[in-house]
Structure formats: C-alpha cells, structure tokens
C-alpha cells in the first residue's frame, strides 16, 4: 500500500502526464503483487472503457458548451440578470452568481463559465465602483457551479467510476447546486451589509425593461429543459440528452446567425482535445484499478482504514481535509479520476450513500478550483482582468470557499437535500 502511494507520488511529482503515470504504476504493480500477468488485460480494459456509451456523453457535453459559448448568449443573459438582481445589496455581484448558475445549467465546464461571465462582467467594476476583490471572487466562485449543476461532466465521471446512476446524480446535484448559489449570494449580501461601499452603484431598471429582458433567458433555459428535461421525463439517457443538446445548440447558433464553419471547427477542436485528454486519464485509471483490485490492494486500503475505528463523521472530516490539501497540488479532473476509485469504496464502507458522496466530492472539487496555488478559476479571472495582483482574486474568493464548506456541513446534517429528489423519481 505504501509502495503504491510512494511510486504514484514520485511519478506525478516528476510531472509525468497523469494518464501515463497511472498506467505505468499499473505496469509496475502487476509483477510486484500479482501471481498472474495482468498487463495483457490493458487492451480489453481500454476497449471496454473507450467504448462505454455513458462516456460518449463527455465529448458531447463539452461540444455543447463550446457551441453555446460561441453563440453569444452569455452577454445577453448577463444583462438580463443585472436588470433583475442589481437592486440587492451587492448589486451586480448577484448577477455574476445568477448568470453563472444559469450558464452552469447548460454547460458542464467551470473554467468556461468563469471566462465567459468574467469577460462580460469585469469592465463593470470600475464603471460602477465595486470592491474589486469581492467582485472578482464572486466570478471565480460562480464559475465553479458549472460542475455541480447538471449537466456536469464531473458527475458522469463519478458515476462511471463508482457504478452510480448518472440521472440520480444529476437529480441530486440540483438542490445543493441552487443551495450553493444562494449561499454565495448570501455571502455577498452579508459582506455588503457590513461594508455598503463594496456594493457599487445600482442599476435602475423599470419593470418594462425587466420583463422584455426575459427573452434573453429563453435560449439557455430552453437548452437546459431539452437536455435535463429529457433525462427526467424518461425520454433519453444522459448520453442521448447530450446529443439532443448538441443539435439544439447548433440550431440555436444558426438562428442567431453565429453558425459558421470556422465556429464549428473551433468548437469541435476544443471538445476533441479536452475529451482525448480526459479519456487517456480514464483509461490509465481503469487499468490501474483493475490491477489494484486484482492484487487486492484496493480492499486492503479499505480494510485498513475502516479498521482504524474512527467514526463516520471523523472520516468525512478527513475526506474534506484530504481534498483541500490535494486540491492545492493537483489539477481537478485528474484529482477526481485518480482518487475516486480509492476514496469512494472507503466512504461507502462507512455507510455514506454513493449518490450523496458524489455531490460532496464535486463540491470539494469546486473548492479546489478556487483555492491557491493551482485554483484554475482564479487564474482565469486574473487573466481576463489582465492587471493588478492575483492575490485580490484569492482574497475575494475566501468568503465563497467558506460557503462551499458550509454547504458540505449542511449536507452532512440534512442528507435529504441531495437525496430527496432522486428518491422522488426512482
């Protein structure tokens, strides 16, 4: 067990590509721990994994997001949100969160959400005298909602790695996703109650403007209903829903005159590059898991940890700390794919529900996206802004990190927040 961990840390520390590091660890462990040569199975495992219909959803969801990004709905959506929400203490920062939430409901990517909403919103900081730090933090944090609110690529990966139903995970992600978004808005509200100057100038809007702005919310909500609605109505599996979403997004882009050959080429290129990179890690991880279970290492780890005699709550605390620390070093997708096959069986052995656990882990991954030094969303916001120091983005994100952790505490006390909706549908 220690040997496994040490080799993995060395390989990853040497900056070997994560997918290759996992695969090579498997190649090393095979002769060390198993009686039979298992390496030959890598071909069959790679084929099974690469041919898995559920995973077909990954390139499709990424492509859906890429097409929607390029169809120009974000800007209009943001201005609609600002008309509706900017009377609140904290003004446009609520629009940042709400636009991110809505964008998250059509896209499974946190980075893209932060980049898009950030580009539209950041010019408003100077124009309307906002506290720069909190404003930037709200954008970085709002972006993380992309992976919690369905459709989410991360939840598909969790579902495949742990054999958990993806529709159940999507249903479970809803209430906590909206909950996190409300907690984010609450954090802004509270900050601005104490420091009203942080809140910037209000935008004055009348009801006519507000109501006419609603039309800009139709495209994202339409895509959301098409994708998520078709899953819950029992019409489509997650992969089929993703396919419908891609076609819907293409029609949407065509209807606003944004559908060009160059646009499709870019969207396809982005989607294929990301999917190929994810799948290499998934194949490496699938192979390593096979070797580790066959050699009995996975079970040994689970037994050792359950044998420590700690309570389930302590274990949850350990899980939170584990991800907070690892989140400081590892890119989030590889962090998820590498750790879940080991972590999930342990937590399930402690009596946690697999669906509930998936939501908690994704919230922890969201946290990793906005904690330094490698919180990618922090860098994205900093790059959009192009001036000043990244520290102000980091400081501004802290209240939101606290809210994400608070959400985990709430989920621990009321697991029903995640589990109620899946039960209604099953």
């Amino acid at each position, binding site marked *: 067990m220690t040997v496994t961990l040490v080799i993995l840390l060395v390989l990853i*520390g040497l900056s070997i590509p994560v997918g290759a590091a996992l695969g090579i660890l498997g190649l090393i462990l095979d002769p060390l721990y198993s009686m039979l040569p298992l390496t030959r199975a890598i071909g069959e495992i790679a084929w099974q994994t690469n041919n898995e219909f559920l995973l077909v959803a990954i390139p499709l969801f990424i492509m859906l997001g890429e097409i929607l990004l390029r169809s120009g709905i974000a800007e209009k959506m943001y201005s609609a949100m600002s008309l509706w929400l900017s009377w609140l203490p904290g003004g446009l920062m609520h629009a940042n969160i709400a636009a991110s939430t809505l964008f998250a409901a059509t896209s499974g990517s946190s980075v893209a959400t932060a980049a898009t909403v950030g580009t539209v919103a950041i010019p408003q900081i100077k124009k309307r005298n906002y506290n720069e730090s909190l404003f930037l933090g709200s954008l970085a944090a709002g972006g993380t909602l992309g992976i919690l609110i369905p459709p989410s690529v991360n939840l598909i990966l969790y579902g495949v790695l742990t054999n958990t139903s993806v529709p159940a995970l999507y249903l479970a992600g809803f209430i906590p996703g909206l909950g996190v978004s409300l907690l984010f808005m609450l954090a802004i509200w509270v900050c601005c109650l104490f420091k009203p100057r942080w809140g910037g100038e209000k935008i004055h809007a009348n009801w006519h403007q507000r109501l006419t702005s609603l039309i800009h919310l139709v495209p994202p909500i339409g895509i959301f209903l098409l994708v998520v609605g078709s899953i819950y109505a029992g019409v489509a599996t997650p992969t089929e829903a993703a396919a*419908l979403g891609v076609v819907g997004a293409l029609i949407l882009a065509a209807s606003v005159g944004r559908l060009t050959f160059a646009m499709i080429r870019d969207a396809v290129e982005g989607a294929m590059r990301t999917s190929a990179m994810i799948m290499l890690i998934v194949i490496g991880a699938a192979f390593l898991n096979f070797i580790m279970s066959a050699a009995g290492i996975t079970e040994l780890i689970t037994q050792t940890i359950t044998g420590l005699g700690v309570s389930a709550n302590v274990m949850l605390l350990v899980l939170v700390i584990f991800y907070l620390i690892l989140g400081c070093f590892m890119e989030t997708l590889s962090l998820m794919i590498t750790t879940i096959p080991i972590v999930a069986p342990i937590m399930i052995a402690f009596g946690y529900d697999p669906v509930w656990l998936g939501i908690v882990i994704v919230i922890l991954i969201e946290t990793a996206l906005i904690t330094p030094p490698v919180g990618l969303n922090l860098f994205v916001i900093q790059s959009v802004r192009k001036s000043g120091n990244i520290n102000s983005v980091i400081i501004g994100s802290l209240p939101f990190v606290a809210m994400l952790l608070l959400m985990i505490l709430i989920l621990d006390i009321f697991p029903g927040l995640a589990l109620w909706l899946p039960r209604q549908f099953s």
Partner: protein
Amino acid sequence: MTRKRIPETIFDRLLAIANTLSRGAMWVAGGLTLMSAFYISIDVIIRKAFNMSLGGSDELSGYAFAISISWALSFATLQRANIRIDTFYQFLSVRVSALLDFVSLVSLGVFIVYLTRYALEVAETSWALDSAANSTLATPLWIPQYLWAAGFLWLCVVLAIMLVRSSIALVTGDLRTVNAIAGIISAEDEALGEAEAGKRLIHGEPS
C-alpha cells in the same frame, strides 16, 4: 552547429507533417462525434414520435467515440494538452525541467506502446475468432477495434518523432525546443488562453 542542421530539419519537417496529419485526424474524429450526436438525436426523436428505432445508435456511437478518441490523442499530445502536475516542476531550473519534459515524453511513450500492443491484440483476437457484437447489428468487432487501435498506432509514430526530435534538442542543448515540443503549459498560460477565448467569443469574432 551547422553539422547538426541536416537531421534537425528532417525531423522538423516530419514533426510539421505529423502536426498537419494529426489535425486532420482530429477533425475527422470531431466529425464522427458530431455525426453521432445527429444519429442519436434522430433515433431518440423517431423512437418517441413513431415508436420505432433506427437501432444501434448506442453501439455505433460507442465505436465512433472509441475511434475518435484514439485518433484525437495525437493532436492533443502535439498540443501538449496532456495534464501534468507542475507543483515541483515550476521551481526547477530550465535544464532540469527540460530533462523532466523528456522523461515525461518517454513515460507517455512506454504507456502508449503497451496500450497499442494490447489494443492490437484485442482486434487480432476478434479477427481470429470472428467475434461479433452481442447486439442486433452483430457488428464484426474487428472493424471498429482495428480502426481504434490504428489511432494508437499513429500516436506511437507521432510520439517517436517527438522523442527523436527532442532527443536531438536535448543533446545539442537546445532547451527551448525541448520545451516547445514537450514542456508544460503552465496554469497561467492555460488560463490566459481561456480568457482570450472568452474575450473573442463575447466580442463576437467567430474564430
């Protein structure tokens, strides 16, 4: 230095050709994925509307997915899109990090060679046993499996070219080329790319 110019230019040309071919392969892969999206959508719609099915959309899109991923990998690798953890890397000197870039490329090569060898074996077994998918289509499995394994084989070729080119660069002390072929794209640079993409999208230039 002139002494080493000749092999360098050859491998630079090869690298450029590999880039062009891989980009083409990636477009075909993306096209396959888009076709899957349409095929699956049509299948869902006529299944609901007319209560009948085109059949096999899950099976065929699974094959398309496998083939598109294996063929897209070479482009992703050439673009240095593979995720590497730079926690220590970022603190190292240019010389040491160039060495790690090389080690990483070798490791990736080792893993991919294993993967390719046994992926080919999967396809060969299906060919020898004449295995067919357990579905109504009863697809002879060797067809998608060979196409899939061929993608990995191409990745091996690309990796070999990258390895030779970066070996030459490493030996001649041309660290910048090692970095250009196999270096890590830092989180800052990656974020910058995303941010620029965001800006382009919002301000409406399509490409």
